């Protein structure tokens, strides 16, 4: 019997698990995928919004603004790549200046720190590649960019170090209420019992809600498509550049990423279903053409990837955070700024759990730090010392991002070891660069096969079923031992 069960290991589930791991509670996270952050948290703009955007008085406004400082501190403590690069909302015509002024006043009302309005000259001084059409801009220096995967991973890992259990490939298929709480059926087979149940199932939060309480909201996935460009374009802009928001949302942005690439997107069209993260030629073209209105010179021949993610849009304009049935807490409809608001959502969930009569007693020894080795950020002297101490850091596996075998080994020995080639990429950046795993893919695959003692045909690209290889070649099938090249 668990005190708390959390459904979903996206940023919201992971932040909640981390928050609860401060207390003497028996907590389990149930995640149907084979890794954290494979839902909406995987594909988004990676911006920690300053908080001028949501309407005053909403949960979104309150939780976002509250989270900015916490997120910065968390990233520093847990070694998550982040950068407080600030954001601008560009008025690209004289008419749009009004919107910028409106946002400025909204920022004041929401309690966002340090925002101000920049003149055309000031914008072009800070961002020389912005379109000459710019008339003014709102500047919000507290906005940040993060690595959303490592952020989620760091929170989940730290929760585990503090005793939280995370079960992967565990899909919640049914829930019944019991006298003491809830009985959850997973994978249509086993059951898990808990006093408190937290619904952090992202795009599927309506389905989970409907297993317990009266249906009163529906999630309609809204797709956002992106282009990711090579580092050669990474310095094109230095802060997050938004266009003026419209009914369709915050619009297409142009931003550097924490890894030094340039990210352009998202669009906004309805997805066919919750899992439909396909990209479409028309929408990608729209994104490109729209982004050029902000930054005309972007060189799209430097594109290295396009992708898309789905927002958990509901008929309500705000997040849906409430005790929907006794001991059953919805953290639902967490669309943007969900990544930004996660730490405050988690704190709110903890308070709600306490209000359910569960005592929150702080642990004596809460582990609240995390560090990992990032070879390519070290000085020559540090590199020399590191390889001296462990030669595996001398072998570079990914040449575009300079990721070493030592770092991949570290990931494999971490609390949430990578199960797939892409999971290695999310943890170490191997395969994230301009060749997109062309060179290091086979070697990462081999390292995974060896580590898990499996044949290479059983290694996954990403989620369950995504096999990279189909069989041995004719000649190799007739030999018995696996060739090992190192």
């Amino acid at each position: 019997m668990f005190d708390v069960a959390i459904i979903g290991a996206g940023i919201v589930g992971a932040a909640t698990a981390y928050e609860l791991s401060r207390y003497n509670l028996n907590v389990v996270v149930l995640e149907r995928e084979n890794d954290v952050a494979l839902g909406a948290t995987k594909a988004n703009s990676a911006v920690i919004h300053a908080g001028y955007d949501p309407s005053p008085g909403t949960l979104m406004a309150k939780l976002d603004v509250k989270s900015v400082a916490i997120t910065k501190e968390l990233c520093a403590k847990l070694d998550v790549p982040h950068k407080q690069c600030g954001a601008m909302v560009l008025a690209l015509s004289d008419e749009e200046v009004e919107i910028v002024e409106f946002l400025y006043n909204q920022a004041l009302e929401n309690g966002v720190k340090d925002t101000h309005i920049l003149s055309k000259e000031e914008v072009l001084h800070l961002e020389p590649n912005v379109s000459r059409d710019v008339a003014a801009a709102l500047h919000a220096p507290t906005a940040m960019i993060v690595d959303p995967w490592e952020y989620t991973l760091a929170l989940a890992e730290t929760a585990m170090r503090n005793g939280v259990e995370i079960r992967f490939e565990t899909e919640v298929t049914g829930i019944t209420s019991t006298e003491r709480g809830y009985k959850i059926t997973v994978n249509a087979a086993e059951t898990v019992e808990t006093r408190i149940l937290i619904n952090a199932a992202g795009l599927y939060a309506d389905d989970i809600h409907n297993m317990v309480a009266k249906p009163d909201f529906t999630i309609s996935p809204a797709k956002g498509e992106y282009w990711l460009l090579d580092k050669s374009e990474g310095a094109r802009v230095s802060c997050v550049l938004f266009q003026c928001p419209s009914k369709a949302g915050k619009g297409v942005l142009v931003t550097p990423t924490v890894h030094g690439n340039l990210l352009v997107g998202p669009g906004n069209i309805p997805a066919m279903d919750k899992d439909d993260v396909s990209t479409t030629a028309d929408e990608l073209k729209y994104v490109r053409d729209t982004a050029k209105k902000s930054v005309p010179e972007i060189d799209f021949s430097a594109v290295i990837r396009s992708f898309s993610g789905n927002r958990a849009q509901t008929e309500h304009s705000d997040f849906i955070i409430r005790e929907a049935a006794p001991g059953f807490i919805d953290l639902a409809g967490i669309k943007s700024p969900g990544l930004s608001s996660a730490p405050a959502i988690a704190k709110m969930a903890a308070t709600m759990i306490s209000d359910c009569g569960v005592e929150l007693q702080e642990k004596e020894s809460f582990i609240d730090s995390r560090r990992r080795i990032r070879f390519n950020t070290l000085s020559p002297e540090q590199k020399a010392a590191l390889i001296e101490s462990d030669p595996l850091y001398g072998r570079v596996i990914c040449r575009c991002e300079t990721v070493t075998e030592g770092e991949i080994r570290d990931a494999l020995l971490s609390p949430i070891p990578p199960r797939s080639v892409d999971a290695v990429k999310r943890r170490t950046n191997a395969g994230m660069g301009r060749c997109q795993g062309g060179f290091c893919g086979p070697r990462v695959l081999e390292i995974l096969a060896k580590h898990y003692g499996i044949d290479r045909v059983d290694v996954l690209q990403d989620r369950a079923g995504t096999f990279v290889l189909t069989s041995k070649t004719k000649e190799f099938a007739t030999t018995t031992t696996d060739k090992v090249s190192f």
Partner: protein
Amino acid sequence: MIQHTHYQLIVVGGGPAGMAAALAAWDEGLTRILVVERDFMLGGILNQCIHTGFGIEYFEEVLTGPEYAWRFVSMVHDTDIEVLTDTMVLSVSEDKTVHLAGKKAGFLVLTADSVVMATGCRERARGALGIAGTRPAGVITAGTAQRYVNIEGYMPGTRFVIIGSGDVGLIMARRMTLEGAKVLCVVEILPRPGGLLRNVVQCLYDFEIPLLLSHTVTDIRGRERVEEVIVSQVDGNRNAIPGTEQSFSCDTVLLSAGLIPENELLNAAGIGIESSKIQTSAPGIFVCGNALQVHDIVDNVTLEAQRAGIEAANFVGCL
């Protein structure tokens, strides 16, 4: 382990270009030469090119890639040229300081009188082509597939659509067919094939593999693995023509749509390359082989690299 911390010439990359440059410099009288190779052995991309067709001009013989490479490897072994394998060059600076790292070599800072960059090229990946659709497993570049099949002994799929008619793609169409896989078609956006005519004939026509010229892939479908690919005809501006869509049910998309010279070390050091010039903007630093320009025929790589080796030796001789 290496003998020196200062060399007359450091060659970055031990493919056919790197080896030919080192050998030419040796013949010109340089004695302290180091070749650094990231892989476990010399030979570069040739090690995975097990088909024939190499050396027709240079050796006037028809060799496989590894045979061609090994002629140079044994010539290197017959000299006192030093070789470091399983070692990656991390940076090269304008003053010819070279940082490298290897599991056995450790972290080394070396200096040189001259440097030849022979780092080869990389393939254009799906993202660079901007093909829409889902992002399942089973989309792979031809060179990576070639490595899986010819070096690791694994098949990346059973039913293929190949995008791009570059030589690597053509060779792989035949290779996959010989391995028992089905190649449904090769799709080329241009009105003419990208690879050598001999490869079109020997790798496609001889195996009755359709070559769809002026066509492109407009959609990739499938959740876990690739399940379906949509191919459309294109107009003169390379835009898909609506109504010409054809569907192919397959589990793998092989990309052979261009090779890009790999010059990141030079870029990072702010060293410029002028089109097809061996001499870079930094005196004493040279570039050759596929790192300078993508070559169809390795014999030309060898000749170009020999010139780079000679220029490096001349540069050192004038010091």
